[in-house]
């Protein structure tokens, strides 16, 4: 089971952070070549990320690179560095429509062929940061077999919507639209960053909301948030105990040749059994909530 609860943003220009972030064990590390890097350091960050990708220190952590948009002077060079460096996933910012992904995919394929990488080995994800992106989320999510996920990026989105970050009401439609698009396409969905590092209660409240909505995880800007997030996503001991009883009841019913499964007098159907199996898989992969 691939867990994608935490995607930790790292400025691609910061050698210290690139050298040490693996110790925090996020599920994914996202080397940022876009907003976190000043114009004068774009060249330096690109090479730093290119070489960092080839270091063995990130073993077991999915490596993502956020490139600059392809219509900037930086985007095509960032893409070369990422694909040639062996990145797992390229994150495209400001994705407004499926055509943006088609263009990215064509460029990725050219680079894979040029450098000898297996065609199709570079996965893609799209960041949705505008009203157009939200409206086109389904076609974006289904635009390529390389797509592994879509992420909502809150800051640009609320500006485009002529509002501002608040209690989450302003993101309600976008969160639901992005999540449904991801599920319809069979890919993962990632929620926005929570920028107030000192508001642990607010962070956990937001995590609880997005977990209940169904998001796979969240973009993070500080390692302090990783453990909190992972713990909140871990099933409780009560969840695990119930899941074990559901799976045992399903197995017993199969042995007995019964079409209907019941547990404590309640009927258990296939989706409940499937959910119970997911809970057990998650517990095996991430442990039980502390």
């Amino acid at each position, binding site marked *: 089971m691939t867990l994608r609860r935490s995607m930790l943003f790292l400025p691609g220009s910061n050698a210290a952070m690139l050298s040490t972030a693996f110790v925090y064990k996020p599920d994914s590390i996202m080397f940022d070549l876009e907003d976190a890097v000043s114009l004068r350091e774009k060249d330096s960050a690109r090479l730093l990320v290119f070489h960092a990708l080839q270091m063995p220190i990130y073993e077991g952590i999915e490596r993502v690179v956020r490139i600059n948009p392809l219509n900037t002077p930086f985007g095509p060079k960032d893409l*070369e560095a990422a694909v040639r460096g062996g990145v797992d996933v390229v994150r495209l910012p400001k994705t407004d429509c499926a055509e943006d992904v088609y263009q990215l995919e064509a460029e990725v394929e050219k680079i894979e062929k040029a450098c000898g990488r297996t065609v199709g080995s570079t996965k893609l994800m799209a960041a949705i940061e505008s009203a157009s992106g939200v409206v086109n989320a389904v076609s974006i999510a289904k635009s390529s077999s390389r797509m592994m996920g879509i992420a909502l990026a809150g800051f640009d989105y609320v500006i485009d919507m002529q509002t501002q970050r608040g209690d989450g009401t302003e993101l309600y439609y976008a969160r639901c639209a992005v999540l449904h698009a991801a599920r319809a396409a069979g890919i993962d969905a990632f929620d926005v960053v929570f920028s107030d590092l000192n508001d642990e209660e607010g962070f956990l409240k937001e995590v609880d909301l997005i977990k209940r909505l169904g998001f796979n995880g969240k973009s993070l800007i500080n390692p302090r948030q990783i453990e909190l997030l992972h713990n909140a996503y871990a099933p409780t001991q009560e969840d695990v105990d119930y899941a074990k009883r559901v799976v045992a009841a399903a197995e017993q019913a199969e042995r007995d040749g019964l079409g209907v499964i019941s547990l404590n007098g309640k009927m258990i159907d296939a989706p409940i059994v499937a959910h119970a199996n997911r809970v057990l898989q998650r517990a095996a992969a991430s442990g039980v909530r502390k």
Partner: protein
Amino acid sequence: MKIVKEALAGTLESSDLLVKVAPGGGSLEVVINSEVMRQFGVQIRKVVDETLNKLGITDGVIVVEDKGALDCAIRARLQTAVLRGAECQDLNWSVLS
């Protein structure tokens, strides 16, 4: 590749390095100062020499102030400083790998 102007790359923060390059007078001079010279001096020198060799740098002054950077950072900062000093915009990935 030829260094035609002075250039800098990197920082003096921990786990990073600052690289200064300047045009030379017909020979290559490489100065390396590192906080971990005693433990990793040989490896740092090897990475610096390999990187400059791949870039084809045979003339210039290269000063490396290392603050305990990983090999990947040494390669990246050195390449950036040289490319800036050579005013090179096109990336030849075969010499950067």
